[in-house]
């Protein structure tokens, strides 16, 4: 049984209410941080914890916080990224729905550390009912004196609001999110300047994922050094994994980073093995954007080491033989899965979600969808697989935001590891040419 810090109380009746949440130690981090710590000391604890952004990029949170500009007389903002849209990822929804106060508590402590007086939780529009749950929790926190003016008599003021989006994957990209929060189309901004210098309304801004913010609570409660002892190497702490696809027990699991991948898939504590007594063919371990791996490379690295659920182990071997932990969107496919058909759903997804600013992404995602469509519908040409490869190569690295890379990597990895499956779908008359 691994250590749990975020959703250990998810089954407690009434845990979504402030009363029950407090009975289980809730808001202790706010008391400790606001009454006994300086903002700088909180940032220091987060640095010591080794916490890395849980949205997908894995950037050290403490370092991101320390980049925040602090010009005199200019407002600073903390914006929580609850736009969770990466296919295969639904952990933030679970956390917010079950234990909304965990996010509210983290937002208060983190906002204090960053000197923000107004903070926003930007949540994807489809999660409207979750936004309602968060709003109810926030109202309770105001009534209890954890939000508003002069919080706990410390003189610190904070307002916290929930903002709903309206259906756009790109708004999970932090600058697109800020554009959307300003009432515009979700077009990512050219960087620099980074949000730490010029973010929301041109002011210094930190954008953090839901799970990242929630992890600040145990870090402050136990101290950064203790938190850093959990996990493995530079993958400290626990991580929420969204498990889906052909497994017996889909759902959200909190794991201690470093858990063997094989144990995660086959243990009854987690995924419970492959459904219908089938064998596993492949897995996407970190959300749709990260490379798909065949079973043998998922369970063991190319060097034969057991693969672990950690940032380093999952990316061992680079894209040639590895993948990424990403957002922790863990999608498993059984032996009967047609990898090309699955890829087609991704090409369609990224084409739909491209914001259209950069031509390599806007045009390239459309071409990839079109070509994948004709391959899986039996009208592929002999040259199509190489053409797909060529297009993804021309998108990668040539766009102002990571959506281009995110669209390219699934195509590249599916062809890299499962080329024969694509070839098998090309009509024999075509191959004769």
């Amino acid at each position, binding site marked *: 049984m691994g250590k749990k810090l975020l959703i250990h109380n998810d089954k407690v009746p009434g845990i979504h209410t402030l009363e029950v949440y407090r009975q289980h130690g809730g808001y202790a981090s706010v008391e400790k941080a606001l009454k006994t710590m300086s903002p700088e000391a909180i940032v220091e604890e987060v640095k010591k914890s080794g916490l890395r952004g849980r949205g997908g990029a894995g950037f050290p949170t403490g370092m991101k916080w320390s980049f925040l500009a602090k010009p005199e007389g200019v407002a600073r903002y903390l914006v929580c990224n609850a736009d*969770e849209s990466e296919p295969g990822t639904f952990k933030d929804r679970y956390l917010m729905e079950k234990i909304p106060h965990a996010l509210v508590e983290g937002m208060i402590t983190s906002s204090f550390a960053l000197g923000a007086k107004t903070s926003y939780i930007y949540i994807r529009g*489809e999660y*409207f009912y979750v936004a309602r749950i968060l709003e109810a929790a926030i109202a309770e926190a105001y009534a209890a004196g954890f939000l508003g003016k002069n919080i706990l008599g410390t003189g610190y003021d904070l307002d916290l609001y929930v903002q709903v989006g*309206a259906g*756009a994957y790109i708004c999970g990209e932090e600058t697109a999110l800020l554009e959307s*929060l300003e009432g*515009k189309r979700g077009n990512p901004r050219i960087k620099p300047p980074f949000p730490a210098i010029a973010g929301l309304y041109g002011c210094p801004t930190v954008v953090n994922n839901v799970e990242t913010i929630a992890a600040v609570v145990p870090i402050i409660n136990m101290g950064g050094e203790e938190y850093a002892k959990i996990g493995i190497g530079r993958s400290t702490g626990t991580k929420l994994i969204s498990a889906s696809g052909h497994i017996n027990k889909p759902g959200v699991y909190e794991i201690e980073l470093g858990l063997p991948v094989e144990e995660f898939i086959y243990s009854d504590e987690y995924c419970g093995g492959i459904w219908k007594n089938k064998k596993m063919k492949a897995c996407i371990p970190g959300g749709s954007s990260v490379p798909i791996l065949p079973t043998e490379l998922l369970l063991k690295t190319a060097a034969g080491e057991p693969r672990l659920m950690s940032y380093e182990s999952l990316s061992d071997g680079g894209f040639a033989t590895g993948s990424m932990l990403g957002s922790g969107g863990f999608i498993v496919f059984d032996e009967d899965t047609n990898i090309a058909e699955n890829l087609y759903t991704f090409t369609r*997804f990224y084409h739909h979600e491209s914001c259209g600013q950069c031509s390599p992404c806007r045009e390239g995602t459309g071409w990839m969808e079109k070509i994948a469509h004709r391959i899986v519908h039996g009208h592929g040409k002999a040259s199509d697989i190489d053409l797909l490869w060529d297009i993804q190569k021309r998108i990668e690295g040539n766009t102002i935001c990571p959506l281009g890379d995110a669209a390219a990597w699934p195509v590249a990895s599916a062809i890299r590891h499962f080329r024969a499956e694509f070839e098998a779908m090309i009509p024999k008359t075509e191959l004769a040419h």
Partner: protein
Amino acid sequence: MSNPVNIKFSDASLALIQNIMSRYPEGKQKSALIPVLHIAQADFDGWLSPQTMDLVASVLKIQSVEVYEVASFYSMFHLAPVGNCVFDVCRTSSCWSRGADNIIAHIGKRLGIKPGETTSDGMFTLKAVECLGSCGTAPMLQCGASFHENLTPEKVDALIDSYRAAGTRRSYTDMDYKNTL
């Protein structure tokens, strides 16, 4: 700007809009645009007509084009009339792997429509959409604010019957979430 005199927000909606506008710094009230468009879509027949968008522009004191360009960007905003119940059926990877295409086909057959179409009685619109963050409970569809998960053809039939019997419009801002059958 066309004249939005024909339609107006209810007092309750206006009060909510004022509350939302107060959440942003002075001069940044355009930030309320997306939340207000959700309210407008719910209040005016489930879609955003040019008149409705002009009304939103006048309430937020911004240009109509600023509303159009945003409304046309986000997939939850409908720029043409839709049925009372819009079925957003997820079809991306995890849902696909657990039979989303069969669910879409089944709904289409039951209702006699294809994705993107509305039944002639104006009751249902079928949409095939991209990942809704419900991968662990696939296949699924969203109708209004409600997520209907772990779908089977039987569950879908029951859902259609219950929505048809209720006959009311479902909007994304509905409060009756999680009424999974």
